[in-house]
């Protein structure tokens, strides 16, 4: 949170309306998520001139209140209201929290033109028995009756809520940095705060030494103050901390937070007496323990950094201080730390300990060393001014920082081309000076020095183009299309088969579903017909989303259940999804689920119910469409979670590419049919080019035949034999009648055989010769009987 009152210390924005300014800032690239106004309009200081009891009430009072421009009558129920009191008056039109608008009216017959308020009614205190008992706020102020009560309450501020993630860096997440951003937008100058304290004639170097034994702390500064008096912070500090979202504690702790919110540099204050004379910064020892300020015992890892007194840790660097050296009410002398730690290391530590503090967030984003120094000086100044501290001269410094100056050289044309704007050198000069980026200009070339406060800017012309572009304004951008070579866009690789399958299945009446890749272990155990090992997440959020699925069928069952519960009777679904096994092998699956009536019209008695053969037809249609006609077969098999008598493997060129069957009744008792194919396997098969085939010109001949065979004999076996015996003249063979149990253990299957010759008209004798051969072959080879 950024407080605008605070920002006003560094830049003049008195002429800016806060909401409009927020729009300008957002347009220039720092997203302001929310503008929070703490101001309450029509709230004034009032003085109670007269207070009498209401004639029709045992607790209401009728007050005559001076509200500046007039004396007005207000009915008030608080027990502590009395003449002579200065109070907070909400005048008609004032809107209190809860969207409660004050209106002039009558209370038990008496005119009342406003409300005398308690702090909890203004949302400035919690409503508790205690605050309720206090009654209305009794105001001790120099302000005259009629004055704006927001000045007294400190509610005349506006806060900007920023999006921390979208944020380019932390440079806008402290008030001085934010002031620089406003300055470049409004083309104004920033005025930095003062730190002109009077050091006493004593030196910090007499009291402490600093040794750094880790390369994760390139910059460490320490200063010392003596004789602080712990007390409440002045009001302005408290109000600003609250506005920025922090809780005031005492003047000393508040000053460290105040400076952090000013400069973005976290500070740490050690109670000097508890620390001793030695500071050693080092890597933590694996398993080393420290009790932090919040009273929790923390176990450290070797990758963490600690501040120690030479022996034991007194602070987890950049994350949280130790309880053992904490500033308390008896603290007199303070050792101030202002340092830069390795950002990545701090982030790891904060995340390992689950301790994301205001400090660790800022360390984790990286810091500007110039402010590391300014912040420690500023803290000394504030401690002197508001905590009665005496500042020792001298500073302890450990400095291994590579202070490389970032310089970008470029020509205006490069930036213009990149943005697609026509900028002049003068435009660029003007934008650079608004940014307050020092530059040199020589014969059309700019040499720009990037200020340290802009850690986000790298030595790329792109980075400069962005800064110039965002201030120049993207509303100046013209729309143009890239001038590139002509080319058609295609679906690359397996994307194509996914699109084809998706569209085909839709046209066959199936609805596309999308479900979650992550499932529960229980779900992942079902339909694991390939016996695949599954990936388990190392950091799942919930156990119901902890396994990467290897089949979409369990999810389709869930979708079925969802729709069934909502009275959808006919459920036709498919889903195409990538699946992965434990070795990360990708397998794109298409799952199909069908249940209910596929095609029907009730009043006509038409009802094609989904069964195994209906779903088989869908798969065949799909496989034929994909160019696999006559290459696949369905083979009976035992398949996980499917009805053992009603399921099959789908083979393509003898390789298993999927399964089909009825869901096992002990898993779901409904008559649900499912199938799943591996699109990855289908995609890897070659198909022949599509060719035209002329229709046969000569008449065909049809012969029917029925055989009685064992119940267990599959029709496919008979059909294959018929085709083999039928030779070239037999064009097709199709079952047209099946009777089960025509005699015990036997069934009858009738086939319709179509004969054709594409070169001449068929002769009855030649067809009959083939037909008889078929009959005798089927009888002799399969133990069938002609019926």
């Amino acid at each position: 949170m950024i407080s605008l009152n605070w920002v006003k210390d560094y830049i003049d924005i008195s002429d800016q309306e806060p909401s409009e300014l927020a729009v300008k800032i957002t347009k220039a690239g720092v997203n302001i998520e929310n503008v929070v106004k703490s101001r309450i309009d029509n709230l004034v200081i009032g003085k109670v001139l007269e207070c009498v009891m209401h004639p029709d009430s045992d607790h209401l009072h009728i007050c005559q209140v001076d509200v500046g421009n007039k004396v007005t009558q207000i009915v008030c129920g608080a027990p502590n209201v009395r003449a002579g009191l200065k109070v907070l008056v909400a005048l008609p039109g004032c809107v209190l929290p809860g969207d409660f608008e004050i209106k002039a009216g009558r209370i038990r017959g008496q005119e009342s033109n406003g409300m005398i308020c308690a702090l909890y009614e203004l949302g400035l205190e919690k409503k508790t028995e205690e605050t309720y008992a206090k009654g209305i706020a009794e105001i001790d102020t120099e302000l005259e009756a009629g004055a704006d009560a927001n000045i007294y309450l400190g509610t005349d501020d506006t806060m900007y809520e920023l999006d921390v993630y979208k944020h380019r860096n932390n440079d806008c997440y402290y008030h001085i940095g934010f002031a620089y951003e406003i300055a470049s937008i409004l083309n104004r100058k920033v005025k930095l705060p003062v730190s002109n304290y009077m050091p006493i004639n004593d030196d910090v170097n007499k009291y402490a030494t600093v040794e750094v034994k880790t390369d994760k702390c390139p910059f460490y500064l320490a200063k010392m103050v003596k004789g602080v008096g712990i007390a409440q912070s002045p009001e302005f500090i408290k109000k600003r901390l609250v506005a920025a979202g922090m809780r005031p504690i005492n003047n000393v702790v508040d000053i460290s937070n105040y400076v952090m919110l000013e400069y973005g540099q976290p500070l740490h204050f050690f109670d000097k007496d508890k620390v001793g004379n030695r500071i050693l910064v080092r890597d933590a020892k694996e398993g080393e323990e420290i009790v932090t300020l919040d009273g929790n015992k923390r176990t450290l890892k070797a990758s963490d950094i600690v501040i120690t007194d030479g022996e034991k840790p007194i602070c987890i660097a950049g994350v949280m201080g130790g309880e053992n050296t904490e500033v308390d009410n008896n603290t007199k002398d303070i050792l101030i730390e202002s340092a830069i730690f390795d950002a990545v290391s701090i982030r790891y530590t904060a995340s390992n300990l689950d301790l994301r503090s205001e400090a660790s967030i800022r360390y984790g984003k990286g810091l500007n060393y110039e402010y590391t120094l300014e912040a420690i000086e500023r803290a000394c100044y504030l401690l002197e001014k508001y905590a009665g501290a005496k500042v020792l001269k001298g500073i302890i410094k450990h400095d291994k920082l590579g202070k490389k100056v970032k310089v970008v050289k470029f020509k205006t044309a490069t930036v213009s081309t990149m943005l697609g704007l026509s900028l002049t050198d003068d435009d660029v000069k003007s934008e650079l000076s608004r940014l307050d980026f020092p530059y040199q200009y020589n014969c059309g070339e700019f040499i720009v020095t990037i200020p340290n406060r802009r850690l986000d800017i790298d030595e790329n012309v792109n980075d400069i183009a962005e800064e110039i572009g965002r201030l120049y304004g993207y509303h100046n951008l013209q729309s143009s299309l890239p001038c590139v070579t002509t080319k058609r866009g295609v679906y690359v690789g397996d994307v194509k088969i996914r699109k084809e399958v998706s569209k085909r299945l839709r046209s066959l009446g199936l609805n596309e579903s999308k479900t979650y890749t992550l499932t529960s272990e229980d779900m992942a155990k079902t339909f694991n017909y390939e016996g695949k090992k599954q990936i388990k997440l190392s950091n799942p959020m919930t156990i119901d989303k902890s396994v990467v699925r290897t089949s979409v069928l369990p999810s389709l069952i869930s979708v079925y259940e969802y729709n069934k519960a909502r009275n959808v009777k006919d459920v036709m679904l498919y889903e195409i999804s990538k699946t992965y096994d434990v070795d990360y092998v990708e397998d794109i699956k298409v799952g199909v689920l069908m249940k209910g009536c596929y095609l029907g019209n009730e009043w006509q008695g038409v009802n094609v119910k989904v069964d195994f053969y209906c779903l088989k037809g869908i798969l065949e249609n799909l496989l034929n469409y994909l160019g696999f006609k006559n290459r696949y077969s369905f083979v009976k098999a035992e398949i996980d979670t499917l009805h053992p008598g009603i399921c099959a493997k789908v083979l393509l060129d003898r390789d298993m590419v999927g399964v089909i069957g009825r869901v096992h009744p002990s898993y779901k008792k409904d008559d649900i049919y499912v199938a799943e194919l591996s699109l990855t396997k289908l995609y890897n098969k070659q198909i022949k080019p599509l060719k035209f085939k002329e229709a046969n010109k000569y008449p065909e001949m049809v012969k029917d035949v029925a055989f009685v065979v064992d119940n267990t004999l599959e029709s496919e076996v008979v059909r294959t034999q018929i085709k083999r015996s039928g030779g070239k003249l037999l064009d097709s063979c199709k079952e047209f009648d099946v009777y089960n149990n025509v005699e015990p253990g036997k069934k009858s299957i009738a086939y319709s055989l179509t004969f054709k010759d594409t070169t001449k008209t068929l002769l009855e004798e030649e067809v009959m010769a083939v037909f008889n051969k078929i009959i005798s072959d089927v009888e002799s080879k399969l133990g069938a009987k002609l019926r």
Partner: protein
Amino acid sequence: MKEQLQSIKNEALGEIAKVTSLKDVNDLRVKYLGKQGALTAILRGMRDVAPEDRPVIGALVNEVRDAIEAALKAKEEAISKTLLEEKLRSEQIDITLPSIEIKTGAPNILEHVIEEVEEVFMSMGYDVVDGPEIEEDKFNFELLNIPKGHPARDAQDTFYIEDEKVLLRSQTSPVQARTMLAAGGDKPIRMICPGKTYRRDADDATHSHQFMQIEGLLVDKNISLSNLKGTFDVIAKKLFGDNVETRFRPSYYRFTEPSVETDIPCFVCKGKGCPLCKNTGWITVSGAGMVHPNVLRNCGYDPDVWTGFAFGFGAERLAMLKYGISDIRKFYQTDLRESAVFDRKEN
């Protein structure tokens, strides 16, 4: 005899006019024209006619027969027609009864939106590609200028499978890196990549641990931010209508520089400001920018020669905005009562 013929004719025509069935018509044909018929009887009596009168009478007989035959034929046709009409009338059905419903399936709403986006981009020469959902940290982050430990990773709380090495991709951007590396640093690229992505967000009305992004990448020579604006305008017009206004707003992403967010006017308040658009009047539909030189370099392209832009749409967000859907979980429930509507073309 003349009178006799005339009276036969009149009698026959009179009778023909009265009959109503085909059988009666046939009976009349027999009665007048048959072997025992009245006209045949007259012809038989011709031998008694004076030879000089025979031609006249003969002609008259023919005339009467023709008249009767014509009348019979006309009557026969009229009756047939009536009979057919009656038959057809009896076959009339109630065409208001319900049809046999020919069902086709609906796409998932996200797929519906993605297909629209694909159509536009493919027409502009963009390929549609995809990459793995189980991804290496290298492609998901490092090559995209987001090294280990970088704060930008905070915004994408990632599902890891092997710590800091293998993850469920948190964005479709790794496909940018894969595409560039595959192209070898010397060929222009135009691609989009719609795909599933995952982040550790608790599911609620506006958050989903699984969601879809539509990534786009163009790498070529002399590409500008204004080209990105033009490209965005095309897709905005396709999705939200020809009159849609668009706005570019500066933003920050690690893999683009300069970076922008692309906005369209808020649907609810039409730009006046409301809770949906957080009183800005604008709704963000994508993040985009010029490909960061580090990313080009990491992926084998020389940033001094090649430039490009990249963009990313959230498919859910597009669908929510376009169809006024307020709960992101809807996309993953497949409530057939809701999805059936999407089995149709767009306007």
